[in-house]
């Protein structure tokens, strides 16, 4: 799980152009400047590419925070 968070931090910093963001389970769109619907799409696409996983449209819009997202990634990677 630790490695997922590390990689998520990297992707978050890249997508939102902010060196200070750190992925934590409770981090959500409301906490990050510029995390609008378009940025969300870019974020999801970057995760798909970075982790080599695919999300359905339903999954992509269902994550309430980074914790749920990390669990989703972990589940797909073990599946």
């Amino acid at each position, binding site marked *: 799980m630790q490695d997922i968070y590390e990689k998520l931090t990297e992707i978050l910093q*890249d997508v939102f*152009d902010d060196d200070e963001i750190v992925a934590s389970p409770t981090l959500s769109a409301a906490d990050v400047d510029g995390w609008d619907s*378009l940025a969300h*799409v*870019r974020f999801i*696409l*970057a995760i798909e590419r970075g982790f080599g996983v*695919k999300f359905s449209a339903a999954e992509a*819009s269902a994550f309430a925070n980074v914790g749920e997202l990390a669990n989703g990634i972990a589940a797909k990677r073990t599946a």
Partner: protein
Amino acid sequence: MSDDILKDLSWLPRAPEDFRKQRRALSDKTGPVGQDLRFLATHRLSDSQLTQLAQTIVDLRSAGADLAPLVPFRLGLVGNGTLDLVAPLLVASAARHGIALEVVQTEYGQLMQEAMSPQSGINSAKCDAVLLALDYRALPGLGSPTSVNDALAFLGALREGFRQNSGAISIVQTFAPPAEALFGHIDRVLDASPRGALDRINTELARSAAASDDVLLDVAAIAELVGLANWHSPQQWNLAKLPFDAAYAPFYADHVARLVAAIKGKSRRVLILDLDNTVWGGVIGDDGLEGIRIAQGDAVGEAFLAVQANALALRARGVVLAVSSKNTDSVARGPFREHPEMLLREDHIAVFQANWSDKATNIKTIANELSLGLDAMVFLDDNPMERDLVRRMLPQVAVPELPADPALYVRTLMAAGYFETIAFSEEDRKRADFYQDNAKRVALQASAGDLDSYLASLNMEIFFAPFDAMGRKRIAQLIAKSNQFNLTTRRYTEADVATLEEDPDVFTLQVRLTDAFGDNGMISVIVCRPQGEDAWEIDTWLMSCRVLKRRVEQMVLRELVEAARRHGKKRLIGVYIPTERNALVVEHYAELGFTQVETDATDGRTVWELDTATEVPEAPMTVHRAAQRAEAEPAQ
């Protein structure tokens, strides 16, 4: 996966570790930033990095920063899917190709209104071009009996609307068919299937774009390259209405950017080849003629033969070939002269630089001998050290990264699209020969010493004619492409040129030149417009740089002065408008004996005047002249 070369833009070097830091540093830089932007953009950037670089460009522009030498271009962007993700990628990719791109977007779904209303956002922005980023989902009723004609009428109306209401040309996309067949294999012949209908629409679009000023962006070909099942992502369409898989967005954006660069005449023209392990396998100095690998039937040798065949195919379409190799000259030339399997021969190579100097110096020599800028050069070398050196010393030169396996050299080089062009004429085909002959002339000149006797030895013949339909395409091309020897850099389209042919008040000249080495083709274009009763203003004067220093300008002026006199004009007025590229001709009118009458302090333009009673001396060349229209008066 073999589409990685394309998807990852693998001809570009990897992004520097401190990309974000370098990018941010640009905001604090004083002076022109264009070169730095272009350097950063010329890396393998993720879509996030591209997006951020685009934001930096937008911020710099609104802060009033000087983006030179990037050339400004305003692109309208309309389509039927979400283009917000791709728009910043276009801006960053354009910097890679020397363009300071500004993207003007429209509201989702307001396509026809944008085209038809003169007050629409796109039309009032006065774009240079509008990109119609439509995919097949924009064409309702695809597969119905009238769908092909409906689609073509729809697209035609959009193109015509933008043209009429803003003067912008359209960049028209072909349509990638959906990844799902409807009937099956018979789809190809059935207009009732999306594939069959789109095939016909694409063919017709390509034809109509070629017959107009509009430019074709062959998205169907891009999708073919990467595979339709990869290109179309149903999830991403559903999630965000992305018209194609975002993984290919950097590749798509690079294609748009290279096309815009081609419109602005910024395509590259010269391929400089390293030899050892690039053109043949092995090291000629160590392995000798028998040891290098280029034979048919040898898997390694065939990879290098493919590089040679590709270079020859490029040469046949007008790309000039040169060699830069660390070798003893006679050793490096050995295979070209004696190896039976070599496809490349010495007379295919315009400039051959085999020596022990560094490659940056050699590439500069090649550019000088060809009288072309460094930004026209592509340098192909298997050695990462040499590539890195050239990128650092000469950032204007394009240097593709190459994969370890030489079998992929050709694909990588060609995927980069360095030699993109929007039109192809008979003269382009001969261009490699022109430049090659020119290099011979430079060499001869260096040895000849006395310029006049050298010029006389060239047996030059100059041909003057007014604009006509036959020269139209080439005239328009020169007007679009000439940057250096161009006094006013006014751009006219092919349609404008046709209008000039008919305008009785305008005096036009197209000039051709032949010499002992061959036919230089059309080398100069002149447009004069009346100013007051007694003067002509030289609206356009441009010349191909390959005939520099041959006193062609002088003979053109002589022709102009005589024509002006015949038309009862007392004065010729010349204007020089400075740009990033035309410092070459800042003294043009002074050197021809004009007197300066005015300087415009704001844009640095200068205005010059010459009395048409002036006798312009003859230069050593024979003159041929076609009759100017409406000049039926008997010869004196």
